[in-house]
């Protein structure tokens, strides 16, 4: 009954709001987000601040399926719907011109420099447009009950031998599992490329659009390193049988399900999965998971780390007093040590304020590992490209390599050559 009553209240409120009641009540901030542990933890900090300062935090959940398109449409039509929105490096440049500069959020000086780089988040005037929420990147997970730390594969070749041994011993059904389909390229394709001096566009690891343009948006499809990568996965599927045959169609859910069932010894997933993998309610391998650096391909000897952030942004079109209030809230969030520790505990994502990292690392071994192997790594890679055509490039890339890896081995070079111009064209 209580639910019913609450619904009536909500319905009435909605009707009132619909009939024009959404007037200028400034002591309220509307947050457009997507329900997930890291965003929930970050919003908990907003709410703590709001309770202290008499500001109501209105949470507006959005579905992931249409988040970018709806938010983009909302930003360009100047509709006054949100004061703070979830932001991600992937669409950093797509939105930069639609967002309020956040250089005057003083606490941003504590944010990680690499992941806040202008190439990702700055607008045309060079102003930053984001306040970080947490570091989000993938790591290489392995089964600590099956593999000793010193036996963890350091190269892609060792991944094959280690997998074959574990399978031969009857320990697991498969050595490796990871997402591979469109929008899941990171979990097999990208990391194995990056570990082999390879990337989607040339030159490898370059994210400066001017330099990419100067290189003619050339795709690396016809480079030997790309053929090596595709052949590696083709062999892993068909010759060595160390990954499931259906893997080229896997998304992250399917790959993580196989890993958590105990059927695979290695996977690559977002560090945020640390908590889930080790939660006995969700995973059959809780307490038997460890993480480390990515194995490397034959063309690369120096380890690398992938490091990006999720963040919050403020739409340019909202009223100045709302912008001011939103910035105060984000400033307070950046300085909220307890809240950020909770965020790490709940998710396994390093919190946005770098000043807190050492302390958390001293208390938590997973953070220590992330700090050593990722956050403090001198060789970092960015997970996406930062121009608006990136989704089209990503799709052209994924379509091509999927076609190559599901076809005949001798056709791989041909399929990649056919896909090369499509990737370049998508970028322009």
């Amino acid at each position: 009954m209580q639910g019913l009553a609450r619904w009536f209240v909500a319905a009435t409120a909605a009707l009132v709001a619909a009939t024009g009641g959404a007037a200028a009540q400034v002591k309220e901030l509307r947050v457009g987000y997507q329900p997930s542990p890291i965003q929930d933890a970050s919003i908990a900090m907003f709410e703590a601040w709001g309770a202290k300062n008499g500001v109501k935090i209105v949470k507006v959940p959005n579905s992931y399926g249409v988040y970018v398109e709806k938010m983009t449409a909302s930003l360009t039509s100047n509709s006054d719907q949100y004061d703070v929105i979830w932001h991600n490096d992937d669409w950093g440049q797509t939105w930069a011109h639609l967002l309020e500069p956040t250089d005057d959020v003083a606490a941003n000086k504590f944010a990680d420099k690499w992941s806040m780089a202008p190439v990702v988040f700055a607008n045309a005037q060079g102003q930053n447009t984001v306040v970080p929420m947490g570091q989000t990147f993938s790591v290489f997970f392995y089964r600590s009950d099956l593999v000793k730390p010193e036996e963890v594969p350091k190269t892609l070749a060792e991944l094959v031998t280690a997998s074959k041994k574990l399978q031969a011993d009857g320990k697991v059904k498969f050595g490796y599992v990871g997402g591979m389909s469109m929008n899941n390229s990171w979990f097999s394709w990208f990391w194995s490329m990056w570990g082999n001096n390879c990337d989607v566009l040339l030159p490898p690891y370059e994210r400066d659009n001017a330099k990419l343009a100067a290189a003619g948006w050339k795709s690396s499809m016809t480079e030997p390193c790309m053929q090596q990568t595709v052949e590696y996965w083709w062999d892993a599927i068909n010759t060595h049988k160390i990954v499931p045959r259906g893997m080229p169609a896997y998304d992250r859910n399917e790959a993580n399900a196989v890993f958590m069932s105990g059927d695979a010894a290695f996977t690559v997933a977002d560090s945020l999965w640390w908590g889930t993998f080790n939660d006995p309610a969700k995973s059959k391998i809780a307490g038997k998971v460890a993480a480390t650096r990515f194995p490397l391909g034959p063309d690369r000897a120096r380890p690398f780390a992938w490091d990006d952030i999720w963040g919050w942004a403020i739409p340019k079109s909202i009223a100045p007093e709302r912008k001011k209030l939103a910035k105060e809230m984000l400033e307070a969030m950046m300085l909220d040590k307890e809240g950020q520790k909770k965020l790490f505990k709940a998710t396994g994502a390093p919190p946005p304020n770098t000043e807190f990292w050492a302390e958390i690392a001293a208390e938590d071994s997973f953070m220590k590992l992330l700090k050593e192997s990722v956050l403090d790594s001198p060789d970092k890679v960015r997970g996406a490209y930062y121009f608006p055509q990136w989704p089209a490039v990503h799709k052209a890339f994924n379509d091509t390599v999927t076609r190559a890896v599901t076809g005949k081995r001798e056709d791989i070079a041909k399929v990649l050559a056919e896909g090369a111009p499509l990737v370049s064209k998508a970028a322009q």
Partner: protein
Amino acid sequence: MPIVTRPDFLPGLPKWSRKTLFALALLGICFAFAFPVLWLILTSLRPESGVYYVHRGTEFTLSSFAEVLSDERIVGAFLNSALISTLATVFSLLVTVSSGYMLSRFTGPAPRIWFGTIYVFRCVPYISWVLPLYFVTQSWGIYDTYTGLLLPHIAVHICFFSWLMKGFFDGIDPSMEYAAMIDGCTRWGAFIRVAVPSALPAISALAVLCWLFTWNEFLFALILTGNRVPMITVVMAQFVTEMGLRWNLMAATAVMALVPAFLIALFGQKYVIRGLRI
């Protein structure tokens, strides 16, 4: 009287084997049709660690349902969905009964143009207008309101239902309406008091189908709702996050959403079959 519209099943075989084969075939068909949903129900009862490998392990729990129900939005979303589905059904039928009647009973340029319009707009793919629809509801200030959700849901049925309604009225002899008009009934009187009652079976059939469609509709709900008027499908869609799918919660919500749909289909099917005669 020989029941000849129902000829024997495989007439060459002896009676007992005919019966067994018939029963087996029925069982197979039912199983194939119900399987995805049965599997979904089974999934929703598994602990979170077993929602993908449903066949591995025999632990069952209601914890996913408990977790879903602890979300305070869920009750509201159920009621919203029921309300929108019901209102959309009522209003869709109100506007399409008269439109179908017009298409069936009159000739000339107006009905021809209207039928052409309906046909053309039926052919335009959703993909091309959901996003503009979002702009439109926003600029008219009805985004994320009951109005902004309801009216497009009614509009989407107009073409299809007008078309079907025309078919239903085509099957009803208009002489009763003429007789009523000779007796002094107005055109409106003949339509409302004579034509509509004789089309009631068809109307109730469409009502059942319209309700089920709106209840299960995803894309519109996703584009046209924010947080003030969440529908059950929107809540379900929010279990898909960038970090992955909360499949146990989605399955549990979907199973709960199945119950009203099942009841409607169970009690409504009789009207549907009686009514869907074109």
